[in-house]
């Protein structure tokens, strides 16, 4: 009988601890805490950028490789681009399975982006994944040209 009580008490404590840990984890994810950092410092953008969210994947080629997707702009002040504004720019995936993957933009429409095949296909990208397209850094371009 006493053993049963001890087990019950241990289980109660374990459940309490788990709830506390889960509560702590939730507090880090509370949406009202996800806000600005040192944004009150005003510096000029060092690159031209576009941030967007994937709304649909393009059709795969015969081998199942996907090189395009449809997107909508997200973030303050981000507007749909004009055609081929981003040709040659760098696309970096900021979420999902392809996090940190980099591609070169081959072409774009107002809501469609196609990447160059040389960086490989976009397979693994998913609807709702977020990405950033950045103008290549001028100093990086210069270094690349100087190097050959």
């Amino acid at each position, binding site marked *: 009988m006493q053993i049963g009580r001890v087990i019950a008490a241990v289980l109660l404590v374990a459940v309490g601890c788990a709830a506390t840990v889960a509560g702590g984890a939730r507090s*880090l994810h509370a949406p009202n805490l996800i*806000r600005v950092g040192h944004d009150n410092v*005003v510096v000029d953008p060092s690159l031209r950028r576009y941030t967007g969210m994937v709304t649909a994947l393009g059709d795969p080629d015969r081998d199942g490789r996907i090189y395009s997707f449809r997107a909508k702009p997200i973030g303050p002040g981000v507007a749909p681009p004009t055609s081929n504004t981003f040709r040659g720019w760098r696309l970096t995936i900021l979420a999902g399975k392809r996090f940190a993957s980099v591609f070169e933009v081959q072409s774009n429409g107002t809501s469609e982006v196609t990447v160059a095949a040389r960086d490989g296909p976009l397979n693994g990208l998913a609807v709702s994944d977020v990405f950033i397209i950045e103008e290549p850094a001028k*100093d990086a371009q210069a270094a690349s040209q100087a190097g050959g």
Partner: protein
Amino acid sequence: MKNVHRRRITCAWLVVLAAVLVGAANAQTRTPADAVDAFHAALRSKDTAAALSLLDRGLVVFEFGAIDPTADAYAFAHLPFDIDVAAATKWQLETRRVGGEGNDRWVLSSYHVTGAQSDGTPIDQTVLETVILRRTGDLFRIVHLHWSTNDLAYQAAAQRKSQKMPP
């Protein structure tokens, strides 16, 4: 016969060269402090992917009183701005302590940060940085970043701004 021998020698040299290059790439983040320095270098060189590659997917960032609860959130909400700040400022490492053991390490640094805002207002402050890293494979990646500053007005303004944001 001579051609075959030459090809073998060439292949051997290529293998050695590849091994040296791979070793050099790994050496960049072989220690926790290297990973922290590589992260700052990536920000300075505006290399988004390189910066992201040094972050663990479990990353949580505390930045001047605000929170980025995931690597994705930081990548979208603050990384571009941190790149802009890095481009507009100079971060001089002043102190550093490294600790921890096994796969979990920490790097505590202070930097003298100087530069100018868009309107010419000077930036001159000490930024304190706590970085916790976890080793996966041969590489240390950042699981937590915490920045704060000795500039009380700056810190207070950042926190006021974060509190005013709607939930």
